[in-house]
Protein backbone atom coordinates (compact mmCIF):
# COMPACT_ATOMS: atom_id res chain seq x y z
CA UNK A 1 0.00 0.00 0.00
CA UNK A 2 1.32 3.45 -0.88
CA UNK A 3 2.46 5.80 1.88
CA UNK A 4 0.09 8.55 0.73
CA UNK A 5 -2.89 6.19 0.96
CA UNK A 6 -2.00 5.15 4.50
CA UNK A 7 -1.41 8.76 5.56
CA UNK A 8 -4.78 9.77 4.13
CA UNK A 9 -6.52 6.90 5.91
CA UNK A 10 -4.87 7.65 9.27
CA UNK A 11 -5.50 11.38 8.96
CA UNK A 12 -9.20 10.54 8.73
CA UNK A 13 -9.35 9.04 12.20
CA UNK A 14 -6.24 10.20 14.03
CA UNK A 15 -8.33 12.39 16.37
CA UNK A 16 -10.42 9.38 17.38
CA UNK A 17 -7.27 7.33 17.95
CA UNK A 18 -5.74 10.09 20.04
CA UNK A 19 -8.87 10.60 22.15
CA UNK A 20 -9.21 6.86 22.75
CA UNK A 21 -5.56 6.61 23.70
CA UNK A 22 -5.90 9.64 25.99
CA UNK A 23 -8.94 8.06 27.63
CA UNK A 24 -7.00 4.92 28.49
CA UNK A 25 -3.50 6.18 29.35
CA UNK A 26 -4.71 9.41 30.93
CA UNK A 27 -2.02 11.85 29.78
CA UNK A 28 -1.16 13.46 26.47
CA UNK A 29 2.52 12.43 26.41
CA UNK A 30 1.76 8.73 26.62
CA UNK A 31 -1.17 9.18 24.24
CA UNK A 32 1.12 10.78 21.62
CA UNK A 33 3.70 8.09 22.20
CA UNK A 34 1.07 5.43 21.56
CA UNK A 35 0.15 7.08 18.27
CA UNK A 36 3.79 7.11 17.15
CA UNK A 37 4.06 3.41 17.99
CA UNK A 38 0.84 2.77 16.09
CA UNK A 39 2.28 4.47 13.00
CA UNK A 40 5.33 2.19 13.11
CA UNK A 41 3.04 -0.84 13.41
CA UNK A 42 0.89 0.31 10.50
CA UNK A 43 3.90 0.90 8.27
CA UNK A 44 5.40 -2.43 9.15
CA UNK A 45 2.13 -3.98 8.05
CA UNK A 46 1.64 -1.70 5.04
CA UNK A 47 1.77 -4.57 2.55
CA UNK A 48 -1.30 -6.20 4.16
CA UNK A 49 -3.00 -3.01 5.35
CA UNK A 50 -5.25 -2.79 2.29
CA UNK A 51 -6.62 -6.27 3.01
CA UNK A 52 -7.88 -5.27 6.48
CA UNK A 53 -11.66 -5.05 6.26
CA UNK A 54 -12.17 -2.26 8.78
CA UNK A 55 -8.88 -0.38 9.02
CA UNK A 56 -10.23 2.15 11.51
CA UNK A 57 -11.42 -0.54 13.93
CA UNK A 58 -8.11 -2.38 13.48
CA UNK A 59 -6.19 0.81 14.36
CA UNK A 60 -8.40 1.36 17.40
CA UNK A 61 -7.73 -2.21 18.58
CA UNK A 62 -3.97 -1.79 18.11
CA UNK A 63 -4.14 1.55 19.91
CA UNK A 64 -5.98 -0.09 22.80
CA UNK A 65 -3.39 -2.86 23.04
CA UNK A 66 -0.52 -0.37 22.92
CA UNK A 67 -2.17 1.64 25.69
CA UNK A 68 -2.52 -1.47 27.85
CA UNK A 69 1.17 -2.30 27.24
CA UNK A 70 2.12 1.23 28.21
CA UNK A 71 0.15 1.07 31.44
CA UNK A 72 1.63 -2.32 32.24
CA UNK A 73 5.15 -1.00 31.71
CA UNK A 74 4.33 2.01 33.85
CA UNK A 75 2.98 -0.11 36.65
CA UNK A 76 5.68 -2.74 36.33
CA UNK A 77 3.26 -5.58 36.80
CA UNK A 78 0.63 -7.46 34.87
CA UNK A 79 -2.60 -6.64 36.67
CA UNK A 80 -5.95 -7.08 35.03
CA UNK A 81 -7.16 -4.35 32.72
CA UNK A 82 -10.07 -3.64 35.09
CA UNK A 83 -7.56 -2.31 37.62
CA UNK A 84 -6.27 0.35 35.30
CA UNK A 85 -9.06 2.83 35.73
CA UNK A 86 -7.36 4.20 38.80
CA UNK A 87 -4.32 5.18 36.74
CA UNK A 88 -6.09 6.56 33.74
CA UNK A 89 -8.38 8.71 35.83
CA UNK A 90 -8.45 12.27 34.70
CA UNK A 91 -9.52 14.82 37.21
CA UNK A 92 -11.93 17.51 36.14
CA UNK A 93 -10.03 20.27 34.37
CA UNK A 94 -9.58 23.61 36.16
CA UNK A 95 -11.85 25.44 33.74
CA UNK A 96 -14.72 23.17 34.68
CA UNK A 97 -14.16 23.81 38.36
CA UNK A 98 -13.83 27.52 37.68
CA UNK A 99 -17.18 27.51 35.99
CA UNK A 100 -18.60 26.23 39.23
CA UNK A 101 -20.39 23.40 37.54
CA UNK A 102 -20.67 20.96 40.36
CA UNK A 103 -22.84 18.58 38.44
CA UNK A 104 -20.43 18.60 35.50
CA UNK A 105 -17.46 17.65 37.65
CA UNK A 106 -19.55 15.03 39.43
CA UNK A 107 -20.50 13.45 36.12
CA UNK A 108 -16.90 13.55 34.95
CA UNK A 109 -15.79 11.93 38.19
CA UNK A 110 -18.37 9.22 37.69
CA UNK A 111 -17.14 8.68 34.13
CA UNK A 112 -13.62 8.20 35.42
CA UNK A 113 -14.73 5.83 38.14
CA UNK A 114 -16.42 3.42 35.75
CA UNK A 115 -14.82 0.00 35.26
CA UNK A 116 -12.36 0.07 32.34
CA UNK A 117 -14.62 -1.80 29.90
CA UNK A 118 -17.62 0.41 30.61
CA UNK A 119 -15.51 3.53 30.36
CA UNK A 120 -14.15 2.47 26.97
CA UNK A 121 -17.60 1.47 25.71
CA UNK A 122 -19.17 4.79 26.78
CA UNK A 123 -16.32 6.60 25.05
CA UNK A 124 -16.57 4.61 21.83
CA UNK A 125 -20.35 4.87 21.67
CA UNK A 126 -21.24 8.30 23.07
CA UNK A 127 -18.18 10.27 22.03
CA UNK A 128 -17.05 8.51 18.85
CA UNK A 129 -20.40 7.11 17.71
CA UNK A 130 -19.31 3.57 16.87
CA UNK A 131 -21.83 0.79 16.30
CA UNK A 132 -22.09 -2.15 18.70
CA UNK A 133 -20.42 -4.35 16.10
CA UNK A 134 -17.47 -2.00 15.76
CA UNK A 135 -17.11 -1.66 19.54
CA UNK A 136 -17.16 -5.43 19.94
CA UNK A 137 -14.38 -5.70 17.33
CA UNK A 138 -12.27 -3.05 19.03
CA UNK A 139 -12.68 -4.27 22.60
CA UNK A 140 -12.91 -7.96 21.88
CA UNK A 141 -16.28 -8.56 23.54
CA UNK A 142 -19.48 -9.86 22.00
CA UNK A 143 -22.13 -7.37 20.90
CA UNK A 144 -24.35 -8.59 23.75
CA UNK A 145 -21.62 -7.95 26.32
CA UNK A 146 -21.12 -4.48 24.85
CA UNK A 147 -24.84 -3.72 25.20
CA UNK A 148 -24.94 -5.03 28.78
CA UNK A 149 -21.93 -2.93 29.76
CA UNK A 150 -23.37 0.16 28.09
CA UNK A 151 -26.70 -0.39 29.86
CA UNK A 152 -24.97 -0.68 33.25
CA UNK A 153 -22.85 2.42 32.67
CA UNK A 154 -25.83 4.53 31.59
CA UNK A 155 -27.91 3.31 34.50
CA UNK A 156 -25.17 4.49 36.85
CA UNK A 157 -25.40 7.94 35.29
CA UNK A 158 -29.16 7.95 35.56
CA UNK A 159 -29.00 7.07 39.26
CA UNK A 160 -26.29 9.62 39.92
CA UNK A 161 -28.24 12.37 38.21
CA UNK A 162 -31.36 11.44 40.18
CA UNK A 163 -29.31 11.49 43.38
CA UNK A 164 -27.88 14.93 42.52
CA UNK A 165 -31.35 16.31 41.93
CA UNK A 166 -32.63 14.99 45.24
CA UNK A 167 -29.75 16.75 47.02
CA UNK A 168 -30.71 20.13 45.51
Amino acid at each position, binding site marked *: MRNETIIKALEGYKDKL*YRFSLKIVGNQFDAEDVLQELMIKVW*KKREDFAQIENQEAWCMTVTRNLCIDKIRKRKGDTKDISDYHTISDRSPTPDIIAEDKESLSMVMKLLNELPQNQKEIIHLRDIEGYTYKEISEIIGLTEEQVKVNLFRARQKFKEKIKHLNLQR
Partner: protein
Amino acid sequence: MNNTEINNLLNKYWNAETNIHEELKLKEYYNSGKVAEEHQDAAPLFQIFKMESSINASNIEIKAPTETLARESRVYQLNKSWRAIAAVFVIALASIFVVKSTLNTGNTSKKATIVNVEDPEEALAYTKMALAMVSKNYRKGSDKLSIGMENVNKMNIIK
Protein backbone atom coordinates in the same frame (compact mmCIF):
# COMPACT_ATOMS: atom_id res chain seq x y z
CA MET B 1 -39.01 17.56 18.63
CA ASN B 2 -41.41 18.06 21.49
CA ASN B 3 -40.74 17.29 25.13
CA THR B 4 -42.54 13.94 25.05
CA GLU B 5 -40.32 12.76 22.20
CA ILE B 6 -37.24 13.84 24.10
CA ASN B 7 -38.48 12.05 27.23
CA ASN B 8 -38.99 8.86 25.24
CA LEU B 9 -35.58 9.15 23.65
CA LEU B 10 -33.97 9.77 27.03
CA ASN B 11 -35.68 6.70 28.51
CA LYS B 12 -34.46 4.62 25.61
CA TYR B 13 -31.02 6.13 26.01
CA TRP B 14 -30.72 5.19 29.71
CA ASN B 15 -31.78 1.66 28.84
CA ALA B 16 -29.21 1.44 26.02
CA GLU B 17 -31.99 0.93 23.50
CA THR B 18 -31.31 3.90 21.24
CA ASN B 19 -29.66 3.56 17.87
CA ILE B 20 -26.87 5.82 16.57
CA HIS B 21 -29.37 8.06 14.77
CA GLU B 22 -31.48 8.61 17.90
CA GLU B 23 -28.39 9.32 19.98
CA LEU B 24 -27.35 11.93 17.43
CA LYS B 25 -30.77 13.56 17.80
CA LEU B 26 -30.29 13.74 21.57
CA LYS B 27 -26.82 15.22 21.18
CA GLU B 28 -28.13 17.83 18.76
CA TYR B 29 -30.89 18.73 21.19
CA TYR B 30 -28.52 19.15 24.14
CA ASN B 31 -26.03 21.11 22.04
CA SER B 32 -28.70 23.42 20.66
CA GLY B 33 -28.76 25.59 23.79
CA LYS B 34 -32.55 25.29 23.93
CA VAL B 35 -32.90 22.57 26.53
CA ALA B 36 -36.15 22.44 28.47
CA GLU B 37 -35.99 22.70 32.24
CA GLU B 38 -37.19 19.12 32.71
CA HIS B 39 -34.26 17.80 30.63
CA GLN B 40 -31.53 19.82 32.30
CA ASP B 41 -30.52 16.88 34.53
CA ALA B 42 -28.79 15.03 31.73
CA ALA B 43 -27.23 18.17 30.25
CA PRO B 44 -23.83 17.85 32.03
CA LEU B 45 -23.36 14.36 30.59
CA PHE B 46 -23.91 15.52 27.01
CA GLN B 47 -21.80 18.58 27.69
CA ILE B 48 -18.89 16.34 28.68
CA PHE B 49 -19.40 14.23 25.56
CA LYS B 50 -19.22 17.39 23.47
CA MET B 51 -16.09 18.61 25.24
CA GLU B 52 -14.31 15.29 24.90
CA SER B 53 -15.20 14.92 21.24
CA SER B 54 -13.63 18.30 20.52
CA ILE B 55 -10.17 17.12 21.62
CA ASN B 56 -7.99 16.72 18.56
CA ALA B 57 -4.52 15.51 17.69
CA SER B 58 -3.49 18.61 15.77
CA ASN B 59 0.05 18.43 17.16
CA ILE B 60 0.56 14.93 15.79
CA GLU B 61 1.75 14.66 12.22
CA ILE B 62 0.96 11.48 10.35
CA LYS B 63 4.02 10.52 8.32
CA ALA B 64 5.89 7.39 7.32
CA PRO B 65 8.32 6.56 10.12
CA THR B 66 11.17 6.35 7.59
CA GLU B 67 14.02 6.52 10.08
CA THR B 68 12.94 3.51 12.08
CA LEU B 69 11.98 1.43 9.08
CA ALA B 70 15.14 2.34 7.13
CA ARG B 71 17.31 1.52 10.09
CA GLU B 72 15.66 -1.85 10.50
CA SER B 73 15.83 -2.74 6.83
CA ARG B 74 19.48 -1.64 6.58
CA VAL B 75 20.45 -3.89 9.48
CA TYR B 76 18.64 -6.73 7.78
CA GLN B 77 20.48 -6.16 4.49
CA LEU B 78 23.83 -5.98 6.25
CA ASN B 79 23.16 -9.24 8.00
CA LYS B 80 22.15 -10.82 4.75
CA SER B 81 25.24 -9.66 2.86
CA TRP B 82 27.55 -10.63 5.70
CA ARG B 83 25.98 -14.03 5.71
CA ALA B 84 26.64 -14.36 1.97
CA ILE B 85 30.27 -13.24 2.38
CA ALA B 86 30.78 -15.69 5.23
CA ALA B 87 29.28 -18.50 3.16
CA VAL B 88 31.58 -17.73 0.20
CA PHE B 89 34.57 -17.56 2.53
CA VAL B 90 33.75 -20.92 4.09
CA ILE B 91 33.26 -22.52 0.67
CA ALA B 92 36.58 -21.07 -0.55
CA LEU B 93 38.42 -22.32 2.53
CA ALA B 94 36.86 -25.75 2.17
CA SER B 95 37.82 -25.87 -1.52
CA ILE B 96 41.43 -24.89 -0.76
CA PHE B 97 41.60 -27.51 1.95
CA VAL B 98 40.21 -30.23 -0.32
CA VAL B 99 42.54 -29.31 -3.24
CA LYS B 100 45.58 -29.09 -0.98
CA SER B 101 44.90 -32.37 0.73
CA THR B 102 44.40 -34.03 -2.68
CA LEU B 103 47.75 -32.69 -3.88
CA ASN B 104 49.45 -33.76 -0.65
CA THR B 105 48.04 -37.24 -1.05
CA GLY B 106 49.62 -37.33 -4.53
CA ASN B 107 53.07 -36.27 -3.20
CA THR B 108 52.93 -38.83 -0.42
CA SER B 109 52.31 -41.59 -2.88
CA LYS B 110 55.27 -40.37 -4.94
CA LYS B 111 57.55 -40.32 -1.92
CA ALA B 112 56.35 -43.68 -0.81
CA THR B 113 57.30 -45.26 -4.11
CA ILE B 114 59.95 -47.87 -3.48
CA VAL B 115 62.59 -48.24 -6.14
CA ASN B 116 64.17 -51.63 -6.43
CA VAL B 117 67.74 -51.38 -7.54
CA GLU B 118 69.59 -54.54 -8.55
CA ASP B 119 72.99 -53.05 -9.35
CA PRO B 120 75.09 -52.56 -6.13
CA GLU B 121 76.89 -49.49 -7.52
CA GLU B 122 73.69 -47.88 -8.47
CA ALA B 123 72.34 -48.70 -5.00
CA LEU B 124 75.40 -47.08 -3.45
CA ALA B 125 74.89 -43.97 -5.54
CA TYR B 126 71.24 -43.76 -4.40
CA THR B 127 72.29 -44.27 -0.77
CA LYS B 128 74.92 -41.52 -1.04
CA MET B 129 72.39 -39.22 -2.61
CA ALA B 130 69.90 -39.92 0.16
CA LEU B 131 72.49 -39.43 2.88
CA ALA B 132 73.66 -36.19 1.25
CA MET B 133 70.07 -34.94 1.29
CA VAL B 134 69.65 -35.89 4.95
CA SER B 135 72.97 -34.27 5.81
CA LYS B 136 72.06 -31.09 3.92
CA ASN B 137 68.71 -30.81 5.73
CA TYR B 138 70.34 -31.61 9.04
CA ARG B 139 72.84 -28.76 8.45
CA LYS B 140 69.99 -26.43 7.62
CA GLY B 141 68.29 -27.39 10.85
CA SER B 142 71.42 -27.06 12.97
CA ASP B 143 72.22 -23.65 11.41
CA LYS B 144 68.75 -22.41 12.30
CA LEU B 145 69.15 -23.86 15.77
CA SER B 146 72.51 -22.12 16.32
CA ILE B 147 71.05 -18.79 15.12
CA GLY B 148 68.18 -19.29 17.54
CA MET B 149 70.53 -20.10 20.39
CA GLU B 150 72.59 -17.00 19.63
CA ASN B 151 69.44 -14.88 19.88
CA VAL B 152 68.56 -16.49 23.20
CA ASN B 153 72.05 -15.78 24.50
CA LYS B 154 71.84 -12.16 23.34
CA MET B 155 68.58 -11.78 25.26
CA ASN B 156 70.28 -13.18 28.37
CA ILE B 157 73.08 -10.61 27.97
CA ILE B 158 70.54 -7.79 27.70
CA LYS B 159 68.94 -8.96 30.94
